[in-house]
């Protein structure tokens, strides 16, 4: 009897052809994006999204055309961080026109579609209790549409802010096999390092994309009254961890309450506080990424 491989075509189901068409559409759109960088961690709560938003601003301030994809479908925050929350998307002949944040940064986030703060992302389906079976595919296809059907135009860099979890990195790299690289964010705690190391290894072992380097967030805190600076977390040496994993250490960003306040207001910190230690660190990291992009 014939085997699967003996039979040419799929008998008219056309499933493979539709998937190929989806891939071609995505490839065509992404051909206009010079670089695609994923901001990852593995660990939640380390400030990936804040770092992404502020790096986007720093790079846009240097004249680069930047797009930001909020790849955290279930916990979207980029619309808030970049001040476009509540804005409407517009359907154009070439796709969905994304709202533009500061410095013309184009932002796409699931948050732009949700009706209220309290509304979680839920899908039409047979039963939500069993949704773990198919939710992952829903999310991947959502990201595919966000990438392929958005009128991003010509971009120098698309930054994708990923949710925690190494499995989510593979979702994006499955869609973007030509992902330029992953930027890894951690806080200097042993717990964070423990998880972030796994994410770095996962990216490396699967050869998903090059790891551009390690960013330490919330490294130190400076008292605004006496100027004393101290470590936010005891124990974790991110620079040593980067060296041990043969990763470039891109810099450490100080904890600054004004950064959190700016995020809540939807005004990127870097615009209002470029001369602070945290602002300067973000600018330095952005310049390193830019130099790397130019050298590529």
């Amino acid at each position, binding site marked *: 009897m*014939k085997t699967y491989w003996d039979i040419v075509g799929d008998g008219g189901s056309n*499933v493979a052809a539709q998937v190929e068409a989806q891939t071609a559409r995505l490839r065509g759109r992404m051909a206009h994006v010079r670089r695609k960088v994923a901001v990852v961690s593995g660990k939640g709560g380390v400030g990936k999204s804040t770092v992404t938003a502020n790096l986007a601003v720093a790079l846009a301030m240097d004249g680069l055309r930047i797009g930001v994809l909020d790849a955290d479908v279930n916990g979207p925050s980029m619309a808030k961080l970049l001040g476009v929350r509540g804005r409407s998307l517009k359907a154009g002949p070439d796709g969905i026109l994304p709202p533009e944040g500061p410095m013309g940064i184009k932002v796409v986030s699931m948050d732009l579609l949700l009706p209220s703060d309290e509304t979680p992302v839920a899908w039409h*389906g047979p039963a939500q209790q069993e949704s773990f079976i198919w939710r992952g595919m829903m999310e991947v296809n959502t990201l595919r549409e966000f990438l392929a059907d958005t009128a991003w135009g010509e971009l120098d860099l698309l930054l994708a802010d990923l949710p925690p979890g190494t499995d989510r990195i593979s979702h994006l790299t499955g869609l973007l096999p030509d992902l330029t690289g992953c930027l890894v964010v951690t806080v200097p705690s042993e717990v964070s390092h423990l998880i972030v190391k796994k994410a770095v290894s996962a990216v490396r072992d699967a050869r998903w994309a090059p790891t551009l380097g390690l960013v330490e967030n919330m490294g130190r805190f400076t008292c605004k009254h006496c100027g004393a600076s101290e470590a936010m977390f005891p124990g974790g040496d991110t620079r040593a961890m980067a060296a041990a994993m043969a990763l470039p250490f891109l810099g450490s960003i100080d904890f600054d309450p004004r950064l959190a306040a700016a995020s809540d207001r939807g005004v990127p910190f870097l615009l209002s506080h470029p001369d602070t230690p945290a602002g300067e660190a973000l600018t330095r990291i952005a310049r390193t990424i830019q130099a790397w992009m130019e050298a590529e």
Partner: protein
Amino acid sequence: MKFVCVLCDTPMKLEETVGPVEGSLSVTFACPSCAHRIALLTNPWETQLVRALDVKIGGRNTPPESWEFVRTMLAARREGALEGAGDVATPEEGAGPRCPFSAVANRAAEAASLTWDPSAEERLERVPDFIRPMARQGIERFAAERGYTRITEEVIDEVRGTLGF
């Protein structure tokens, strides 16, 4: 997934896709050599996996609209979030050629107002498994078009000539 006719070792061809009806798709394949037919019946989770792939078994008639998948499948969406885009039917509302599921889902919603007499249900049970969803759908459509609210054995007799069972 491919199907081969065991009787004559010939690759089978897609003949018809029906549904989903109550979450189940009925996909019929036929052998071009010996006309042997089989039907693949999905359970609601398998149907959802097909949906999650954003494909239509048998192919699409029109290219997908921008963000059609997310607009169709997201359960709750902010009003006015997307300006200038045509309406895309969700699995629970409306009908139209863009959504492979909506037309049937809409009919299923209409059918929800119909009740089946136990004796009529019993008659339907005698129909072979693989065409039962199609038969149910045909009977309900027939009844809805005539304004019937109950499906009795008499209604089935009325339909019988049309559907051939």
